[in-house]
């Protein structure tokens, strides 16, 4: 205290100090938890992806050729001097190859979602927690 014990304000401020309220301590200690890395197998994002894959694969296998042909037909209507790459009207692409390509795309989207969740989880959860705390009666 360096000889400041006789400062009346020192005594007053020490007496007036309050303890950290329990609810606030709880809120503060919750801060690091949302930063725990999201597991690759976290059901929050893996389940929707897993359930979507069979349906999308079925759709792709059944309609890929038709869709690709339709797109090719439309593009073939353009004059060639527009230098749009020519796409064969009947592409030689099997439904399996097409499904494979889109499968890779799905994996890329899934990986992107996972990374996004991993980075953004702290912010969103804290914000949600803040709102919850702000509106809770206690």
């Amino acid at each position, binding site marked *: 205290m360096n000889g400041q014990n006789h400062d009346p304000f020192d005594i007053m401020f020490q007496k007036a100090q309050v303890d950290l309220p329990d609810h*606030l301590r709880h809120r503060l200690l919750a801060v690091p938890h949302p930063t725990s890395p999201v597991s690759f197998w976290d059901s929050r994002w893996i389940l929707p992806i897993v359930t979507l894959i069979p349906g999308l694969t079925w759709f792709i296998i059944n309609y890929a050729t038709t869709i690709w042909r339709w797109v090719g037909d439309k593009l073939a209507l353009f004059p060639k001097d527009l230098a749009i790459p020519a796409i064969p009207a009947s592409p030689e692409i099997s439904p399996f190859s097409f499904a494979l390509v889109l499968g890779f795309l799905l994996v890329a989207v899934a990986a992107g979602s996972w990374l996004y969740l991993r980075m953004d989880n702290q912010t969103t959860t804290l914000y949600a927690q803040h709102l919850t705390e702000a509106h809770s009666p206690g």
Partner: protein
Amino acid sequence: MEHLSDKEILDLFRAGNRDKAFRALVDIHGKTVYNIALFTLNDESMADDVTQESYIKIYRNLEKFKGDSKLSTWMYRIVKNACYDAAKKRHFGPVDEMEELDLRDPDGFSPDEDALIHWRQEELRDAVEQLPVNQRLAITLYYFQDKSYEDVAAIMGLPLNTLKSHLHRAKTSLAHALIHLEGSPV
């Protein structure tokens, strides 16, 4: 409560044991941070939010802390900025010194021990609220931290003499406010 040094806390945090490091920061500084916010803003709800907001900033930036100052100085600077921002948003009380203060000698204020017992923290907070925010922060940091002029000056980003002037004015005004508080025991 395990009392860890700044270096131990930083080492823990950087080693990935963030929960334990953060818990130590809450245990060691939480009460002081809350009291600084509470006395600066005189609003429990805002003090809660400012304390949490400060700790979120501390958590997010602790990795980048380079050790140019004491960890506590760095932390309280974040708290000080959060208090300033909150005070500005609410527009209560002058942020800067804009009024001439009654510069009576603060040493003239000397309540006896019996009288001090009867002061309630709300009354002191009400008196502190009448100070400009600069002075509120200066006096709360000074009394709630470690009463080091150098540390408070570093936290506030003020020259030492300016801080001492803030403190002198704050004490004088506080004494004046306390004496004139309705129902004051002094």
